[in-house]
């Protein structure tokens, strides 16, 4: 890890995160993130070369449930919160481009 964090391209990260940001939000977030990332550089001061990363607070083995069919939510419960629906399906803007 370097001593100072690299410049952050917030516009690009926002694109990855699929959040449209205003210019003002972009500059504020750039400032905030630089500050936070500079702070977390301190993690470099501990020797973690031989430390196993900890992904979970308690050991979990074989968290699969038995493969038996269960009851799902009924269709109307699944669709009732959809902002737009039609013919028992979620309605979305057109995905494919028109043929020329």
């Amino acid at each position, binding site marked *: *890890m370097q001593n100072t964090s690299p410049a*952050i391209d*917030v516009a690009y*990260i*926002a*694109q*990855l*995160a*699929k*959040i*449209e*940001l205003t210019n003002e*939000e972009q500059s504020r*977030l750039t400032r*905030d*993130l630089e*500050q*936070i*990332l500079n*702070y*977390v550089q*301190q*993690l*470099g001061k*501990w020797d*973690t070369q031989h*430390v*196993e*990363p*900890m*992904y*979970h*607070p*308690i050991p*979990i083995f074989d*968290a*699969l*449930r038995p493969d038996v069919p269960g009851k799902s*939510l009924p269709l109307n*419960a*699944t669709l*009732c*919160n*959809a*902002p*737009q629906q039609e013919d028992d399906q*979620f309605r*979305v*803007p*057109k*995905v494919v481009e028109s043929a020329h």
Partner: protein
Amino acid sequence: MMSPETSLNVLQNALRSGKISPSEVVEYYAARMDELNPRLNALLSYDKEAALAAAAKADVSLPLGGLPIAIKDNICRQGITTSCASRMLENFRSPYNATAVEKLLAAGAIPFGRANMDEFAMGSSGENSAYGSTQNPADPQRVPGGSSSGSAAAVAAGLIPAALGSDTGGSVRQPASHCGVVGFKPTYGRISRYGLVAFASSLDQIGTLTHCVEDAALLLGTLCGHDEKDSTSSREPVPDFMSGLHDGIKGMRIGLPREYTGGGNTESVSSALQDAVQALQNAGAEICEISLPHAEAAVASYYIIACAETSSNLARYDGIRYGHRSDAALDPDTLFSLSRAEGFGEEVKRRIILGTYVLSGGYCDAYYARAQKARALVAQDFAKAFTELGVQLILGPVAPTPAPRLHEEDMTPLQTYLADIYTVPANLAGLPAISVPTPQSGLPVGVQLLAPHFEEARLLRAAITLEQSWK
């Protein structure tokens, strides 16, 4: 006979002996909500008619029969709005109950009131709610803490005798400390997370806010246990948390980490800690100074991991299946990016962006992997303390200061994150921890006790000893 401080335990006895009826209990709290909630904004809504209908059918012989309990608005209740205090979920009505809610209902409790919170449980002041800040009942100029801001304020002001909250980095314990109530986060996995809207899945845990430790024990007994619907919920046997609660702590070794007593704490926090040391010693416990050498790594590790998990968990809000959908979207791409831009508040966006960054190509090893290793070091410090150093519990502050003033706009996000230094370690390590109010004059200040995994009974026994010694 009822007062704003009446505990679940006292209410339960009064209900069972017939001194009051469940409907009278609901009427009492509804009147307090009507009177105080417009100012406090602790509850986003409360349905008195539904609560009275439940009270009319309540069976007071059940473990929580007829007891009203407020639910933090990130815990799903069937047919009722679960907004996470976000515009994103303003119109979301959950099609199912969270397991914790199912268990409350099965035990005869009456869910009453949706508790305000920081949006998606991200924040530590209660000011990140899309529906307005909550006021601290102890001082209208102060924040109640967060993210379970409404749950803590509602209990402290006697709008409800108890509330469910959620604790990802201190969100139950810190507002409890700031409002002067008991905030309890059990071991990770003790209570099913099914129906708790996901923020950071390896850290999230449902907890309780109550007037006293005994009420926390009563609720835990109902809430915990393995759940088929949450594969991370524990199969550990569930003891009777009420028995042995008053057995005392004679001979118990309690560690006080020197990293937790430094100059960063205000005078009232230091003096609360001293009071707790004295009270525990008077009760026959041995207090020994210990060291958690990686304590300083906790905040950095926590915010990387929590934000990484946030960016992944909150990817589900796409404006299609549920949640806010932008009217301005023309194609699938802008449907996502505009719906998310309009639906999420500032802090949620900040954490998603930070989390996306630390997981992105080229930075994942430098940040995310390193944070997971630091998490292991933080957890190992605790494991060593509980084994090699032989302490049975750890004592510390909850927050370095009492409740800050409302609208402290000169605080940077990093400064607010740093105040989580004493609460995030329990989440990183998955440990049970409790905040107990101290008898400080002035603003409320709690102290924190932490225990090894699944040793809630021991934790509660020490917490009740503290509470009793200050009565």
